[in-house]
């Protein structure tokens, strides 16, 4: 039986080759498969190298098929082995080290190589491409010893490389030949907005520059451009393009143009030899993204296994840039020509941009910047060359559509073909997702991700996956999405708080018992939330339940990924003294602190303290906790202000310290940050704080709901006040309202949007009586707080059990089991 199996050899152990093999395995067991790969690794998700570089993923995270997978499927894998040629006469594949293996069929999946510009100096040390794990490691290594990098090429790859290097602490300049970034995916306007945003994220640009030479000695020291100017740098990433890796095909006598020429079934000019992925050229196109290679792989697998298949007729590609805070999307045609009708909307305030191109009334392409919620439907419409209708127009361009489910239907996933690929990164079709949902009873995108891999890589397909889930579950999804605060209850935050107040529930256990939690002891989501709500409702009586606090709040220090902790002492208003600094230095030396870092909120962070040393460190610092770990007031950032600054109109340092002393230690729904500025120059950046305060000649202006994190939001102007007392009162009232109405983990940026600014203003500003009551409750809660570090130091038992070590001594008995 075994001897009968046909021998299939795959050259290239990358994404195209292995995804084709996966498809073949699903269709038939009639092949004896051998895979050759030049790289020393099993197949990994090349796309995610950008995340590895940036530091948010490790190599292990991005492995797609580990060595066990090959073994389990009886596939012979030769890593670190490069194929030299295919001998069609003897029907053998010959490797560079001289081995030769017979075949019945061959799939070439050799991908592409980075295009290294053939200019003088391109072979100097310190010049790399960005294609594989080794390149990635070289870049990470370089960032340790070198300071400034140039990235040649302002396309997707170049920008992701640049962002990664910036995250690694390098100063980076992207050098681009054109005037527009990503000109192969974006139009002029979107490219401008993209550049703006990336500059804000710390990337430098040299646009319209042609690099003619790499200068320096043995190692690169800079770039020279065609206009005679130069750019100094000590590291260069070439990301100017890719070229299909056609080497094996060429020497074997297979027809090659830019890529290996294939027909609609991936057949090359040589009998029994196929090519798939970036190495091939289909109808004149060489692709550089993964979605086409999955489509090609599907067709090839079916063809090779003798299953009827439609021919491959090319792919419509779309792009997503994997840089956080930068949402761009384009599909189809995006540069307008005379034959196009253009629909465009630009919003400079929200930094969004939308453009759709129509040709003969049909949707030919689209570009989105800033807001990409419509990316999924657009991608589909472009692919189908759908006719533009009023419904589609309203849906995509209409803006504030509040649950207009009627119109949504027209774009829904209902009409999508079942074999259509939803997740381009992982080759997951609609059918695979639908089956996973129906057969395994999945109800969340997370589960679908775990089961099928969809949304696992760039995340661009998440909206469609959600729509499919919604479509398949129908009403089931509705009830599911109306679910409670976690999987343990169907109750919402408001319902729970109302029950706590109404029934006088006093402990987490009571809440769970009375309100019929499905898991008797709750989970990591509901327990901290209940602990907060109980503390908020009963500031004096509630006994904080340590076991329901996240480790950081339980131990009053931030856990790091290696299990050590950080210590941030309080420095009111960001002002310290030489004496305190000296003590911080002494303690850091004594306890071997790994890094002393100035935080974004103007405090000092001692990183890398061992758990058992925490109490000693606090004791010797003899300063209050800075609460850097807590859902509480973190910091009040201040500018210099009128004490010293020539522009200052208000004493921002003093006001900052006063506010920090007043509101510290109180529990909030989420972390809380403030800033105080001496004048409208706003040096301490009020606009990104939960409460930001800006001094003016005669008073203060208060801003609320700002955020600088994942979803940045500029704070709204709340009101202006004349006196310091009014300022402190309004802050107190806003804080209390947030504490009483905020959902656990909801930042003020979300809270303000949910409640509406006017509603908050009405409660705090217009209704004086309500303000007084809020203030009273706030003051009462503030009277209950206690400094946590000194509390631990006082309570010996806590200190011993929570921070002390237990050591197992010598074994005392032996048992045979």
């Amino acid at each position, binding site marked *: 039986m075994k001897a009968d199996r046909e021998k299939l050899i795959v050259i290239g152990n990358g994404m195209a080759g292995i995804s084709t093999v996966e498809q073949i395995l699903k269709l038939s067991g009639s092949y004896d498969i051998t895979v050759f790969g030049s790289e020393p690794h099993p197949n990994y998700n090349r796309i995610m190298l950008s995340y590895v570089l940036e530091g948010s993923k490790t190599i292990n995270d991005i492995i797609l098929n580990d060595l066990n997978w090959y073994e389990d499927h009886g596939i012979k894998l030769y890593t670190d082995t490069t194929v030299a040629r295919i001998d069609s006469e003897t029907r053998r594949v010959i490797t560079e080290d001289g081995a030769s293996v017979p075949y019945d069929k061959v799939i070439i999946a050799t991908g592409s190589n980075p295009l290294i510009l053939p200019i003088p100096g391109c072979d100097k040390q310190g010049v790399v491409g960005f294609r594989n794990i080794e390149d990635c490691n070289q870049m990470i290594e370089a960032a340790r010893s070198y300071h400034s990098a140039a990235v040649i090429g302002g396309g997707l790859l170049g920008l992701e490389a640049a962002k990664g290097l910036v995250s690694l602490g390098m100063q980076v300049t992207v050098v681009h030949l054109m005037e527009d970034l990503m000109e192969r995916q974006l139009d002029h306007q979107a490219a401008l907005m993209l550049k703006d945003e990336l500059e804000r994220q710390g990337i430098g640009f040299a646009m319209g520059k042609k690099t003619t030479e790499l200068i320096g000695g043995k190692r690169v020291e800079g770039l020279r451009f065609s206009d005679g100017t130069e750019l100094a740098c000590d590291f260069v990433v070439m990301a100017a393009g890719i070229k299909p890796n056609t080497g094996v095909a060429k020497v074997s006598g297979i027809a090659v143009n830019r890529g290996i020429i294939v027909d609609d079934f991936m057949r090359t000019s040589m009998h029994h030899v196929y090519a798939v992925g970036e190495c091939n050229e289909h109808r004149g196109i060489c692709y550089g993204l993964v979605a086409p290679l999955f489509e090609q792989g599907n067709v090839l697998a079916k063809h090779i296994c003798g299953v009827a298949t439609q021919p491959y007729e090319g792919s419509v590609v779309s792009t997503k840039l994997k840089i956080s805070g930068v949402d761009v999307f384009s599909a189809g045609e995006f540069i307008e020509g005379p034959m196009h009708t253009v629909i465009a909307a630009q919003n400079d305030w929200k930094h969004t941009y939308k453009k759709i191109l129509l040709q003969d009334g049909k949707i030919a392409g689209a570009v989105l910047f800033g807001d990409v919620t419509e990316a999924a439907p657009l991608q589909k419409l472009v692919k189908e060359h759908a006719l533009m209708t009023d419904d589609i127009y309203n849906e995509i361009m209409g803006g504030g559509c509040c649950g207009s489910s009627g119109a949504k239907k027209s774009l829904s996933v209902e009409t999508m073909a079942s074999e259509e690929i939803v997740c381009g990164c992982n080759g997951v079709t609609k059918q695979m997702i639908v089956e996973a949902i129906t057969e395994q009873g999945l109800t969340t995108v997370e589960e679908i991700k775990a089961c099928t891999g969809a949304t696992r890589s760039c995340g661009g397909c998440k909206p469609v996956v959600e729509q499919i889930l919604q479509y398949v579950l129908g009403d089931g999804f509705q009830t599911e999405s109306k679910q409670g605060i976690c999987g343990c209850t169907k109750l919402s935050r408001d319902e729970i708080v109302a029950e706590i107040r109404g029934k006088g529930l006093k402990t987490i256990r009571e809440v769970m018992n009375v309100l019929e939690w499905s898991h008797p002891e709750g989970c*990591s989501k509901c327990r901290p939330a209940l602990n907060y709500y109980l503390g908020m409702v009963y500031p004096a009586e509630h006994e904080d339940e340590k*076991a*329901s606090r*996240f480790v950081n709040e339980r131990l009053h220090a931030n*856990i790091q990924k290696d299990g050590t902790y950080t210590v941030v002492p309080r420095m009111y208003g960001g002002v310290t003294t030489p004496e305190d600094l000296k003590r911080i230095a002494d303690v850091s030396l004594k306890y071997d602190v790994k890094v002393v870092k100035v935080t974004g909120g103007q405090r000092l962070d001692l990183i890398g303290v061992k758990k058992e040393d925490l109490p000693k460190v606090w004791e010797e610092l003899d300063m209050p906790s800075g609460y850097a770990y807590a859902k509480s007031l973190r910091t009040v950032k201040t500018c210099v202000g009128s004490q010293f600054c020539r522009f200052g109109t208000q004493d921002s340092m003093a006001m900052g310290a006063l506010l920090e002393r007043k509101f510290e230690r109180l529990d909030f729904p989420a972390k809380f940050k403030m800033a105080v500025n001496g004048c409208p120059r706003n040096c301490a950046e009020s606009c990104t704080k939960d409460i930001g305060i800006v001094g003016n000649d005669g008073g203060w202006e208060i801003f609320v709901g700002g955020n600088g994190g994942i979803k940045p939001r500029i704070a709204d102007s709340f009101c202006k006040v004349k006196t310091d007392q009014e300022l402190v009162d309004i802050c107190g009232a806003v804080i209390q309202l947030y504490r009483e109405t905020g959902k656990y983990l909801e930042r003020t940026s979300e809270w303000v949007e949910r409640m509406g600014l006017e509603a908050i203003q009405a409660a705090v500003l217009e209704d004086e009586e309500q303000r007084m009551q809020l203030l009273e409750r706030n003051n009462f809660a503030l009277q209950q707080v206690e400094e946590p570090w000194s509390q631990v130091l006082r309570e010996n038992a806590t200190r011993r*059990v*929570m921070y002390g*070590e237990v050591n197992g001594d010598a074994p005392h008995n032996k*048992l045979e089991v």
Partner: protein
Amino acid sequence: MNKTVKYYPAGSLEDYYVQMGRAVQIEGHEIAVFRTTSGELYALDNRSPHPKGGPLAEGMVSGHFVYDPLYDWKIDLRDGFVQAPDHGEVRTHQVLIEEGTVSIGMSSGHEQGIGTSL
């Protein structure tokens, strides 16, 4: 299948708070010991099966599960299995409580540093 288990003393029961974990050093190995509401103690290797690792002892204990403190993976204290949608396994160890004294059993294979994941 004769396996030798050595028992190492690990303090008294009061050294463990209900619904909390604690790290114990045994011959150079770090073991996380958790005390559940129902009074049992469970011992597991103090290393999360998440690819990025990190300690387990500081996780939140609910019933006979612990939520890993860094990545929130849910792990069954009884058999060390990670709950869906994540996958993995942590090595577990036996715990004896005799007259309030706790000891933790380590099988002899442990010194060879047998891996903790599948």
